[in-house]
């Protein structure tokens, strides 16, 4: 059967993609941001996922204001990087495990998560930046090292789904994956955040203390953390910090007992605090029992 063995939390700041695409990663502004992903790239080479289940949000690229699904699962064979206004990112086309995606779609709906099914979809920086951070620079003629099942979450128009709902969706994703017959190693990504506010007069808000407790509690108190009310994200982590609800989907899909394999935190990437964590199920992490 397929099994989720580890989770990755990761910001998806568009400027990170731009810095990689323009070869700026060694510049003093960017070097400390990227240094924290060196260990992650080693880790994922070792972990060798067959499939990444990647939770992210579309930034009005596919889903403009005309329709706003709370949860939408990518079921197409492949997903092309979108033009977000400055040309598509020069990164590989993202390929799906289409049979697993359709299995997950059916399982989730019968499990009472009424997701939208996307049989055609482009993907924006929300999906491609975490892949680039974890796998390094790959060009349009390359291939990502594994298949990707994308799950989009609305976090642009308030309200995003609650943290509780997201955590429970993570559990449903796990049930869906574990009922898929093929023997697959699946790693789940929860992306977005950390604290940032892009808009209006309070733009630039960063709250390292709050971000730190968020990452700490992913291991020590995931259920309590998932009960964080939306207004706390908005007030403490900025209006766009509410993206962090997507990390609860990742956490919900893991075992109760996880080990923190790696953590990285850096301010700033453009307007945003970059947060990154790798959590492995304790029975899969190689740590002492």
């Amino acid at each position, binding site marked *: 059967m397929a099994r989720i063995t580890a989770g990755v939390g990761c910001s998806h700041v568009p400027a990170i993609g731009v810095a990689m695409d323009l070869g700026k990663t060694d510049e003093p502004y960017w070097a400390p941001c990227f240094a924290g992903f060196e260990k992650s790239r080693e880790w994922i080479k070792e972990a060798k996922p067959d499939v990444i289940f990647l939770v992210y949000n579309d930034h009005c690229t596919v889903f403009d204001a005309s329709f706003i699904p709370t949860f939408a699962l990518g079921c197409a064979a492949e997903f092309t990087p979108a*033009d977000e*206004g400055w040309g598509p990112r020069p990164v590989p086309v993202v390929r799906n495990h289409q049979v697993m995606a359709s299995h997950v779609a059916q399982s989730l709906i019968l499990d009472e998560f009424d997701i939208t099914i996307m049989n055609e979809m482009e993907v924006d920086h929300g999906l491609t930046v975490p892949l680039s951070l974890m796998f390094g620079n790959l060009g349009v003629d390359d291939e990502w090292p594994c298949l990707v099942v994308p799950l989009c979450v609305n976090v*642009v128009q308030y309200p995003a789904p609650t943290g509780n709902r997201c955590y429970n969706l993570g559990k449903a994703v796990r049930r869906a994956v574990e009922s898929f017959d093929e023997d697959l190693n699946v790693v789940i990504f929860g992306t977005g955040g950390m604290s940032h506010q892009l808009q209006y007069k309070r733009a*630039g808000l*960063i709250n390292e203390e709050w971000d730190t407790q968020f990452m700490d509690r992913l291991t020590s108190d995931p259920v309590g953390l998932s009960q964080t009310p939306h207004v706390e994200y908005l007030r403490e982590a900025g209006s766009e910090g509410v993206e962090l609800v997507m990390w609860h989907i990742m956490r919900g899909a893991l075992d109760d007992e996880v080990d923190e394999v790696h953590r990285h935190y850096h301010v700033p990437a*453009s307007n945003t605090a970059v947060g990154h964590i790798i959590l492995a199920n304790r029975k899969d992490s190689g740590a002492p029992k």
Partner: protein
Amino acid sequence: MALKKDYEDIPGTLVFDADRGREGYHLNQFCISLRLQRNRDAFNADEGAYLDRYPMTAEQRQAVVDRDWNRLLELGGNIYYTSKLGANDGITFQQLAGLMTGMGNEAYRKMMVDGGRSPEGNRYQHEWDEKGEN
């Protein structure tokens, strides 16, 4: 019974909720159309004619013409949408933030490099009222 909007007392912050989504719909659809080059070309060739395609309010239209970035948000715009108008004009997210905060690009960039805007004194509207900010 009205839904309680417990997020309205956060200073300097406009939460893009369903009401704002309704008010800003045509404005936001105009902005997002600029994601595509052919639409940017049409807009830049004749802004007025292009704006005629979108039944936004006169105030929204004027805010577009004026590139009044905060007013656009006050009238129902959302930053992920208005940033496409910014991108059309060659303005990045960070430069937009410099404009929206009134700090200017250099001061804003420096604030971010120094760790960003602290939450201290920036959580509740009354904290800004006491400082004489709005």
